[in-house]
Structure formats: structure tokens, C-alpha cells
């Protein structure tokens, strides 16, 4: 669990999500996919298709109608057989980032929503730099904010502005959102979900929908330190920020212990759920600086290189 006790810096609301220095670091990185997907446009990534790049891939027999330019005349000279040279195709990658912007994310110091937006911005920037097709979806009870299929570095400022302007609102309904996403989003590729996964409806159904397209799926659970180690005390009436649900508690040592044990169990369950389905799961606290998360933890997990 990534709970490094780093000094918590609370960024101002209008501060840019990514600093130029950090972006310069991100320039070096690339989003990795453990699988090879077919892209849609020419890109910088190896595709499943055979195509026109300079990298040789295979031979096959000539059939009528094939482009004579790809015949290997040297082979024909030696063996008197007509073989067509096949080359690797390089295409772009679909990088989809789903991030939770429900009310519960606007909570904690540092703010979970801001943290999530920054991570999203960093990942989007990496994708843009590498000519990947980047789609961003901010969701609460529905896909409230979206920016689909942007490509190329020059759109980075638009992406940043888009992220900057999102205000958290509504309650999260992960399964409904995942279903909607699965219907609408046909492209394959890498899908990253950023959320606290504290959804009263559960996460299992949503994950099932997401896996329907067989993407390379990453779940990043972001919790604030107040959630991991509550500092509450006394007799309290706890109000859920999303659905105004009330819980009367008297904070005591055994209760706190029980809460922490429940949290651990919840996160552990999510992790196991992901591991069984080939999903990469990452837990983080907002006290972990997001650049550390991006530059260190995500690299470790193999999402970026």
C-alpha cells in the first residue's frame, strides 16, 4: 500500500495540473500495453495488422491481385516462386482514462478529485506525446464529461483545460457508467479507471462490463488519508457526502480498529478481484505525491515506460 508519509502540499485550485518541468519528464515516457491491439490510424505502435512499415514481418504466397511491388524478386530468382513480403504495420493505441468525479472525490486533503485529475492529465499527456488516441471520461452517475479520441501533442493544452474545468458533482454509480462506456466505446486498448471505488452499488458488475471488450485494464484506487486513518472523535452523526446517508457512531478505539480492519478487507477484496481477472490494481493515498505515483509506481506496474 502506498502510504508514504510525505509532506502534504495542497495545490491551489487554479494551479496548472502539470508543471512544464514535470511534462518534460513525461516526454520520455510511453504508455505500454501488454497486448497488441489493432489501431485505427497510422501511429507509432506495432499493430496486429501487416502493413507498410519498414520492418519485415513475414512472407506469403502471391495471389492474383496482390501489389506486385511487394514481390520478393530475389526469392523468385532463386526458387522461381512468387512470394509476397509482408511488413509490420505501426498504428496508434487507444488510451482511455475513466476517472471518478463524484462528490465524494472532492474530499480530503489533498483533494482526491484534484489528485485524480492530475494523474489523468499525466497519463493523457504521455499518450498524446506518443500519438496515441486518448479518450478521457469523467464520470459520476453517468459519463458526465468526455473528450474522445484526441491525438497529438498539440491538443495537450485542450486536454488540460478540459480537465481543469471539471467540478466534482453527483453520486457515483460505477456499474451504470461502465455499462454505458462499454456500449459506446468500441475501440480496444488500454483502459485506466481512477476512483475511490467506495460505491454502495459495488464494483464487481462495473468491472465485468469493462472487461467485455477485453482491454488492458488498470484500476487505480485513490483514498485520502482521512479515510485511511480517520481523525474523528466523539459521538458523531456521519453524513455521506453523496447520498446524505446518516450513520450514528461513537468513536472509540475498538470502532476505529474495526473501521480500519474493514477498510483493509475492502481493499484486499478489490485487489483479489482484479488479480483473478488479469486486471492491474494499484492503491494509493493522496499523500503520495502524484508525480511519484506516475514516475515510480505506474512504471513499476508496467503501465508506462
Amino acid at each position, binding site marked *: 500500500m502506498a502510504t508514504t508519509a510525505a509532506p502534504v502540499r495542497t495545490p491551489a485550485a487554479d494551479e496548472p495540473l502539470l508543471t512544464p518541468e514535470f511534462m518534460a519528464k513525461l516526454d520520455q515516457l510511453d504508455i505500454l500495453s501488454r497486448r497488441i491491439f489493432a489501431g485505427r490510424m497510422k501511429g507509432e505502435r506495432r499493430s496486429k495488422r501487416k502493413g507498410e512499415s519498414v520492418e519485415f514481418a513475414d512472407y506469403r504466397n502471391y495471389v492474383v491481385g496482390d501489389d506486385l511491388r511487394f514481390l520478393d524478386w530475389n526469392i523468385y530468382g532463386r526458387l522461381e516462386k512468387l512470394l509476397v513480403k509482408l511488413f509490420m504495420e505501426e498504428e496508434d493505441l487507444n488510451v482511455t482514462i475513466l476517472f471518478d468525479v463524484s462528490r*465524494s*472525490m472532492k*474530499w*480530503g486533503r489533498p483533494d*482526491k478529485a484534484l489528485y485524480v485529475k492530475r494523474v489523468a492529465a499525466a497519463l493523457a499527456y504521455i499518450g498524446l506525446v506518443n500519438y496515441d488516441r486518448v479518450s478521457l471520461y469523467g464520470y459520476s452517475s453517468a459519463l458526465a464529461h468526455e473528450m474522445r479520441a484526441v491525438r497529438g501533442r498539440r491538443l495537450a493544452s485542450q486536454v488540460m483545460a478540459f480537465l481543469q474545468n471539471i467540478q466534482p458533482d453527483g453520486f457515483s454509480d460505477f456499474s451504470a457508467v461502465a455499462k454505458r462506456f462499454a456500449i459506446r466505446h468500441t475501440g480496444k486498448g488500454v483502459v485506466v479507471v481512477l476512483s*475511490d471505488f*467506495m460505491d*454502495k452499488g459495488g464494483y464487481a458488475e462495473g468491472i465485468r462490463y469493462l472487461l467485455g471488450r477485453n482491454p488492458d485494464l488498470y484500476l487505480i484506487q485513490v483514498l*485520502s488519508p482521512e*479515510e485511511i486513518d*480517520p481523525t*474523528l*472523535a*466523539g*459521538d*458523531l*452523526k*456521519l*453524513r*455521506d*457526502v*453523496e447520498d446524505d*446517508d*446518516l*450513520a*450514528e*457512531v*461513537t*468513536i*472509540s*478505539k*475498538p*470502532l476505529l480498529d*474495526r*473501521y480500519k480492519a*474493514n*477498510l483493509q478487507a*475492502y481493499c484486499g477484496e478489490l485487489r483479489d478481484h482484479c488479480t483473478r481477472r488479469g486486471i492491474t490494481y494499484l492503491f494509493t493515498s493522496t499523500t503520495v505525491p502524484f508525480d511519484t505515483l506516475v514516475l515510480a509506481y505506474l512504471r513499476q506496474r508496467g503501465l508506462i515506460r
Partner: protein
Amino acid sequence: MEFLAPAAFWIAAGVVPALVILYFLKLRRREETVPSTLLWKKAVQDLQVNAPFQKLRRNLLLLLQLLVLLAGVFALARPIVRTETSREKSLILLIDNSASMNTREARPGGGVETRLAAAKEQALRLLKTVNRTGSSWFRFGGAPQQTRVMVISFADRARVVSPGFTTNTAELEELIRGIEPSDAATTLKEAIELADAYMAQTTVEVTPETSERASRLVLFSDGGIGDLSDLTLRNGTMEIVRLGETQDNVGITALRTQRNYERPEVLEAFVELRNYAPEPVTTDVSLFVDGALADAPVRTVALDAATPVTDGSASAAPGVAAASQPEAARDPDGAAPAQRWRPSAASLSFELELARAAVLEVRLAREDALPTDNRGWAIIPPPRKLSVLLVSKGNYFVESILNTDALPLQTVKYLTPEQYEAAAEGDLAAGGRSLFDVVIIDGHSTGRLYRGNYLFLNAIPQVEGVAIEGEIEGHNLIWWDETHPVLRYVSLEFVYIAKGLRLSLPAEAQTLIDGPAGPVLARYSRDGRQFMVLGFDVAKSNWVLKRGFPTFLYNAVRHLGAGDADVEQARLKPGEALRIPLPPGVAKAKLIRPDGGETPLTADEAGLAYFGGTRHAGVYRVEPGAEGQDRYAVNLEDDNESNIAPRGGLRIGAQTIAEGEAIRTATPEIWRWFVGAALAIVLLEWYIYNRRVMI
């Protein structure tokens, strides 16, 4: 536990609910926003803490605060460790200081103390619970009535230790500490009478308040009280704090010495030992003469274990112990379930040559709990041949008995009545005291009587109160005192008297033989003279023909010749008064007690001094003393005192004495502990609050 100020609990009644209500008020919850109640709800469900009383149960701080509060209230209530407080109007402490209270007991904390010391300690502890409220700074309501306390120590007689009833307990503590042990027997009667008398005095001022609070008598004793069945307790209640555990004791219960009649230089000593312990014991018995080991073998005696008897069978069972069981044991209904022990006994006799006056001491070598009865003393008079004066017109029978060798007589002088009356004083007496050990006056009533011992046959001494009222003819004897030494081995069944005197004697005279018309033989002492009067002429009876007459004459001469001091000496017990004849011309003397202390003595006009302080067993010596009468042996020789087994189930009349509980702690007030506990709990609460061990 009792409380001197129980009103403090009213504070608790107010404060404790207030504290609990404060905790309930605290339940108004603050609202707090959280990103998700998902986990909280789960946690709450897991713990189920929301029910108010479950919450209270889990709330350690409230619990601790309540404890602090209660400890404070308890401290204010001034608890004391005792089953009851002394709320009576008057409290009488009866402290037994008899011989058995000298028994050494193992103290609970180690060491050895006597039962008397334990009794004094218990009495002091009881005293500390009395009148405590008087010095209180914390009191609800008015000052309670003070309890008045009196202390009586008792052994063979009772002594009021305190100056009547007093409320000054501090002064009493000193007086109780000053109670001294004695070796005397235990009689409670006098103490009860004293207490009754004092209580009667105090109830003169009867007010409704005083009458409802009875006097309380607390008896500190081991229960070995001989005279319980004679007692009645007129007012007040009695309880006993019974002391003592051990019963390991072997004692000398009898020591008798006697010179052999034929060979006066041979001394015979008879010793009876009793074992009161429930185990068999062996002990060495040795004789000491004037403090040095005597020329007689040291005997080793094995005694069986004492056997337990129940009250009912104690009186019925034959044996040595049955006759000497205390009165209480012979309680007719036998309801008291107390276990009694019948001691085993052994008798020893020693013979040793001792041709001089001496102090004979018997010692038991065995160490036991009661040392007093391990030693016994006897004063041995010098072997003395008597000088006898016979004043008679000629009595063949008497003369022939005196002339035999059976009586170890030094001199026998014969005078006729006329010669007796005409004799010069120097021939008969010196310094007012007769020169003869025994004067036998046959058929001659006379008034010439120097201090000495007289046997009148068919005559009377002419002293006040003694007279001849007439004659009586032909009668038998009706009753005689067989136990008196003069009549020992004397058979009087078939004695016929042809002609006798009708005697008139003072009331204090001791009748030894009764005839149809009053006393026939009597003993009478007056002004240092001892008379034995036989009211008939032996020549005119068939007694002279029987063996009984010489025996009687023999006994009478020996008995009179030994002097009554000898008789008294034989059985002196602690507490009894000494009657000490001082040598002629000596008005002041001193008495040296066994512990070495001295008491001055003053003779009265008869040349006698009295001493009443024989509190301890041992040899008392007079200096200067009359020859042969300057030493007195005081021996315990008391079965009841030697039997140190503590006895329960005591009864006064029909009433069983409740057994009070012994007070174990010396600091009856324990509020300090509660204050300490409150402090400790406050500290603990602060620690828990700060460390959030459990909030």
C-alpha cells in the same frame, strides 16, 4: 464493614445519577461529513455500540469516574472494619487475667504472646471503635451520645481497672495496658456483680434514650471459667471474645508432702501430673531442695493423650477428670456442643531424706504453653518432736497412749489441774505463747490459756461463747466429719457414750462430731489459741476400747501440734491471703515475693500479719519470720486453669454467650484506603484518556 457517617451516601445518591446523566447528555451527536458511510456503517454494525447501555458498559472512562466518585463517598462515610459499632450507652470490658491467660500462644504474625496480651490487644482494638464519631470533622446531625466504657479485670477476684465509667478512651488504653497477669483461678461472679452494680448506678437516670441502649459486656477470656452456672446477668448483653488455640500443657495438679511418722527425717512427696494435650507426652520430673537438685532420682513420666469428651458424658464418666470438671461442663441439659478434653493423669511418689526445714520444688522439664503449673513448691517443716502437757487428775487411757512410741513426742509433762493453775507463768509460757505444742486438759475447764493449742477432754476453755449447758446420758454419735484430718481412719459407728456434756459453742466453731444434743467434738480458734473440745469423758464410753480412740488422739495431737498454719499452708493458691504469725516482739517485717519484690508487713495485736497479694505462684518469704512459719508456698494446683484448651459455648444460666468476633486490624478506620483508591483511579483515568487506550 460499618460506617460512622453513612449520611455520606446521600451524596452518592445525588452525584452518581448526575454523572450518568452528563454522559447521556453527551450523546447529542456532532454532524460530520464523510466521503462514504459505507465502511462506517459496517463497522458500527460489527460493534453494535449504539445501544445506550452497551455503550455505557464499554465506556471505561465513565466507569472509572463512577469508581472515583464512589471511593470518595465511601471515604466520606468513614468505614471501619468491624462487624458492629459500639453504639451502646455503656460498654464493659471484662478482661480475664487468670493463670490460664498466661498461656503462650503463637501470634498470627509470628512470635509468641500470652493470651492476656492478646486479650489486651483485642480490648484496645474494640476500644478504638468506641466514641470515634466524637472527633469527627464530618458529621451529619447532632453529636451522638458518647459510649461510656468501664474495664474490669478478673481472676479469683475482680478489679475495676478504670475509674468507673469513662468516655476518655485514651486514658483507658493506658489502664488496659497496665493490667498485670496473675496465677489465680477464674471466677467471673464477682466481676459480673461489680458490673451489675455499676450498671445499676448508671440506670438511675433513665431516659427513653438510655433505656433502649443496653449495656454491653464484652468478655475477653479463653473460656476456662469455673463458676459460670452460678451466674445471672441482670441487665445488658454479654459476648465473649474467645482467645487461645493451643492446649499443649502438662501441669502439676497436686503436690503433697508428709514426713514419715515413724521416721520424721524421711520426707514423702506425692505429685500428681495431668496431661491436657491431645497427644501423649513424656516429661522428666525432678525434685529440688532449696534450689538444688535433690538427692532423689529424676523420674520420666509418660502420660497418655487427653481424650475428648462431650458435655453429657463428662459428668457421667468415671475417672480422675470427671470429678474436677468445671461446673459449666456439668450443665444438666448438656446442650452446649463444645468439645471438652479429659486429661490423663499420673501420680508419682518420692521419698527422700530431709532432716531439716527446706523448700521442696517439683519441676517438669517439658516446655509447654503454660509454664506456671510446671513447678510446684512445698514448705517442709523441720522434723519436730512435739512437747505435750497433759493436765489431768489421772487418765489411764490417755497417758498410756502418750507413753507409747507411736507418737514422736519429745517431752510429755503431767500436771494435775491444781498444779496447772498454780504453776508459774515461766513454766507454761514465754512471751504469752505456750511452751508446749499441745496442751491436753482432761476434765478441767480453765481460763488460763496462753497462745497455743489445746485439746479439752470432757471440759471447756473458759472463753467467751463456750459454755456447758448441762449433761446428757447414754447416747450414740449421729454425724461426724470423716474428711477432717483429726477423724481420718477413725470409726465412730458403734461408739456409745454413757455420760456427756451438752456444749454451747460460738457460731464460727467447726463441729466435727454431732450428737443428739449438739456438738460432741468441735474445733474453735480465737486470739491465736486453737481449741479442740471433746464433750464427754472417754473413760465413760466404749470408745477407749476401740482402735479409733488412739487414732483420734494421735491425729489430734499431730493436727494441733502442727498448728493450723500448717494446714492452711498445704493448700495455698494464688490469690489467697496469707496469715503470717510474726515472731514475738516483732511488729514490722517484710514479705519477699517470688519475683523478688518486697512488701512491708505490720503485725496486729495477736502477732499476725496478713498479705493478700499472692498473685503469682511461688515461695513467699517473711523476714524476720517465726521459726517454721517464715515461708509459704503458693501453687497453682488448679485443674480448671491448667486445662488451657479454649472452651466455647459458654452459658450464663440458660443463656448462651454470643461469641464476638475477634478484631483483626489495628486501624479500624479505613477511609484513607478509599481516598488512596480514588487517587489511583483518577490517575488511571487520566492515563487512559491521554493514551486513548479506549474511548
